[in-house]
């Protein structure tokens, strides 16, 4: 299996990469046997020089914080002293993205740089080279901790993997967080629709909470957007991408 992937990779490498450093291959090939990096042979065959259409994937990513913001009085320590109630799970798992210095908000460029760094460290120059030319932050909203990434269709898994490995926010002494990919789609429109859908559900939940009917269920707060019926859930089976022209989006958590 490893050898197979390696040879496939070699072909990919020679065709795609502008870097001619073959020795990287040796260092990288074991990594490529890991599941998320298995290339889809079909998408490779589409990568012929005649076919010049560029195809992208859009990733909708949510940043989850596990701790409370530094300015928030800790609920456990100050439960007796503070007059306000402990922070509900809904707010806790849907925090805005804050930086230490409130004046300079986080820029998308910072985020992008961090993702690139992560990819480089995980997949080397080759992986970074594949992804970098097309990686872009299409939307980044610190208030809701949501961002949309554009990746080339063939390599979106590299970015996804990198996001999974990132553990803190990309600033100095950044808060620990999790990057959660909510949606992969072929069009920006569908990603936007999904964002709206999720935001609606969160609003509903927040309104219920305002009325006092809060069910302080941490898991529910976390999976608020996913709990409702998903019509088109395409599971990704065994690392094989259900990647085709007709398929335009899939949901994975």
């Amino acid at each position, binding site marked *: 299996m490893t050898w197979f992937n390696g040879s496939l990779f070699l072909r990919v490498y020679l065709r795609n990469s502008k870097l001619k450093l073959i020795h990287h291959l040796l260092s990288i090939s074991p990594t490529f046997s890991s599941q998320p990096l298995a290339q889809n042979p079909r998408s490779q065959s589409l990568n012929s020089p005649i076919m010049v259409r560029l195809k992208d994937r859009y990733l909708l990513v949510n940043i989850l914080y596990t701790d409370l913001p530094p*300015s*928030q*009085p800790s609920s456990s320590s100050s439960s007796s002293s503070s007059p306000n109630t402990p922070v509900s799970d809904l707010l806790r798992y849907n925090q*805005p993205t*804050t930086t230490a210095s*409130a004046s300079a908000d986080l820029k998308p460029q910072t985020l992008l740089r961090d993702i690139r760094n992560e990819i480089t460290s995980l997949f080397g120059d080759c992986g970074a080279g594949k992804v970098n030319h097309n990686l872009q932050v299409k939307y980044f909203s610190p208030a809701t901790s949501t961002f949309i990434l554009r990746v080339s269709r063939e390599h979106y898994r590299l970015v996804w993997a990198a996001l999974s490995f990132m553990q803190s926010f990309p600033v100095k002494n950044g808060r620990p967080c999790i990057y959660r990919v909510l949606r992969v789609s072929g069009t*920006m429109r569908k990603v*936007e629709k999904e964002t*709206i859908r999720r935001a609606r559900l969160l609003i509903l939940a*927040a309104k219920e909470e305002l009325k006092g009917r809060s069910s302080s269920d941490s898991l529910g707060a976390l999976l608020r957007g996913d709990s409702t019926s998903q019509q088109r859930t395409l599971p990704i089976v065994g690392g094989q991408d259900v990647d085709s022209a007709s398929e335009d989006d899939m949901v994975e958590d």
Partner: protein
Amino acid sequence: MMKRKDPPGGAKDTQGRNPNPRNNKRVKVQDARNIRTQPSDAALEDGKLDLNKFLNAREFEIKALEKSMNKCKAINATRVFQMVPRAMRRRTASHNVKRVPKRLRAQATKEMLDDNTPTVESRKRKPRTTRARIRVETMKRLRYLADKKRKKKAKKAGDGTTEEVQPKGTSIIKTRAPRPKIRRNMLNEPPKADSKYRKRQINKTWLPTHLWHAKRATMTKPNSPLWRFAIPLTSTAKCYRPTHRASGQKGVVAWDVSYMSTIGMYGTADCLERALRSLGLVQEGLWNARGKKWRAGVRKWTGTVSRQQKSLRRDIGPATIVWNPQPPATTSDEMETSNQPKKPQRQILIRTHPSCFLELFEELLKLAKSQKPQLHVEDLRFEIGSIELVGPGSTETLLGVLEPFHQTPEAAECHATVFRSLAGVTNPASLPKDAILGFSAKDPRLAYPPKRIQIPSGSEQTLLKTLTEWPVEENLKPYDIFDRESRYQASRMPAQKSINRRKGANAPGEAIKVTAADPPIPVMLLASRSGTDGQAQGTWTLLAPWKCIQALWYCLMHYPLTTGGNPRLGGLEEQRQIAFEHGLPWFPGDFPATDAGVEWEREQRAKRRGDWDRRPKSKRLEWKSLDLGAGRKGEMGDGFACDFEYLVGLAAAAAGRPDVSRTQGASDAVSISDGAAEARVGDQSVGGQSPAGTIRQVTKREFDALVRLGGGDKPTPPPAGAVVTVGLEFVARGVAKACARIYRLPGRAKVEEVRAAAVASTQAEVPATPEVKTSNGLPVDLREQWLAKVPDGNGKKKGAAVPRMPAGVDMETRKKILAGSLLAVEVPYPRPAGGRNEVDLGGHHPLCPGEEDLIGFVTTGAFSLSEGRGAAIGSVEVGRALETLREMGGREGRLCVVRNAGESVGWLARWEVV
């Protein structure tokens, strides 16, 4: 001159904006794609998490995203002509605003201005070709002449007296307006065309709706009309599947079939009977009590008429025959006045296909003259036009368009009331078989646009009662459409201009009142069933005077169906398609045993050959090198043809000599090369001299009788050169095209013979070889190979079952099983001797049977949307078909192999006589 791509005003913008218009556009796009965001503070209350702020942040996000989506959509380069529904799109709409619907025209004009689209104005366009230039010059000269004439006339009228206007010697006698002559026993002239269009109709006649159709359908080529008519072949829009849907599930397909020929005939009842009997209407059911309704004129008869040709009868083609009802019995005093009781005169209408019109007309003339007292024949081709409708909404459409013409409810005609009560019928086949309705209708333009009909609630009971009782025989009167005077009156409809004027005087949406100027339109409706089962959609045929067809058609096409949409237009292709989907043969294409069919086939051959000739040599089929396997080279017979001549020749040769020698096969190539010459001299074949002219049609009934007779010890010899039309259905895969060859499965008895012979020979001389071949090199077990391809009841192939992957095994096991199965297949080493396709095709498909098993040809074939698999209509030679049926029984005997012309792979099908 500005460049096309540059938007106007891009260059003159100097104040701070980007001078490059492309950059402007880019900025615009970037702006539209930018989604607004909030800083993190927006979601925090003094740095603390807060529910209200949280809510606000989400709301802001939703708004921002929605706005971005809208903006992105708006920035897209869409033009108004792209918003038009598919059926209304025109290629020229991108540069001609007049091709865009009116409500979008202003916007389109603006867009074209913005975009600097080069537009044309036909008025200002210069003629490009020499021909066009000459035409323009002639037009100019003519205009000048007409102008001069007009001026002269005006001058004369100005200074002339009244005497000059009314010259001396003319008396003021009112005369009947001249009406077109209908000459008896002669062919009639087509209606005189408008002088503007006369030159285009020298060799053909336009349908009444020609101008409408010419814009929406592919017509026959101007220099090659079909049956002397310009006929719409198919819609210009894609319509294969929509037609299938509209004809069976939802909607209507309508055809202007005014090209169908109508012949009138009148004389005494028994003379007519004798004439019709000699046309082949010999079933006693027509002439005894069972045919009473038909003879009374409340049912029609549809079938094939034939003529005597020496000792045999030859089919002419399908015809519909309608009797005119007799006028109600005259009172006794009238009888007394006419001292000599004359036999009542009866009238019939014969409606037939234009391709066999002349043949039938000449035959009728012969028959009419031989009767005593003589019959009279009238050519009513351009007197009566017709429209055909198929689909669940057809009855509804007719109800919406045809309003019975009567002033008071008491004066209502019986048939008109029956017709009005048909609201709710979704299939004309549910009416009594071959029902006729004849009545007078109002001018449909008076109530234009047609409105959706209201089905009265609780009408099901009355409808059922009407359908079962079918009260059409009480006070039956002759149909007006038989009457020349009323047809003539109807064709003098008021002009569209006057209708418009009357409409303008009316309140909006109100129907125009009938006045004396509006004549009643005599119509006749024929309901026919397609096929034998009552489930298939039937057809409505509307007969009306030729001149009224256009008005009816315009209203028909705008009827709003209850299921949505309007009726679809159909062409000749659609007619063929629907006949094919119902499993019915289409005249003349599927009737190779009629003169019209032979003629059609000849044209098709020439067309196929022409298409073939036009292709470059490297890209066309080389018939001679077609490999049929087992050493057989070359197509059998003419590859462009349903080569019945070849088949009949083979059969005759087989009857003379028991085994057909291969030398005949070798002569195939010759017959192909001189096929062109054959097509050229094919004119003689119509006369019935060539082999194609001698083939004879056998009906289903006759064929069944032959099959039943064959049960005896001594099989009756089938008629020579007889073919029977069959419907074919593929048992598994395969789609046939026209000209595909139909083979029977090789005979079992022959196989036994050969095997015995082989065994005998091996005992005598050489050691036994495992493979025994018949004399023509085909494997002995060819029949078994083909039978193994028959799927069993569950739709699975018999034969060796392919090992299936067991469910729910993991990857490793799957791999092992796969590898095992790959290794298990034994490839013989060394490869068996002999060339390619010696024993079978590619190692898994049986070879086609030999030419001694060729039984017929496919005349129409395609993938049938109603069956969900390949189907075809063809003709098989009766002798061979009977032989097979007797030898192998009804089930196996109907299995056949169908191979497309020019291909080596055959597919298994089952035939059934239709």
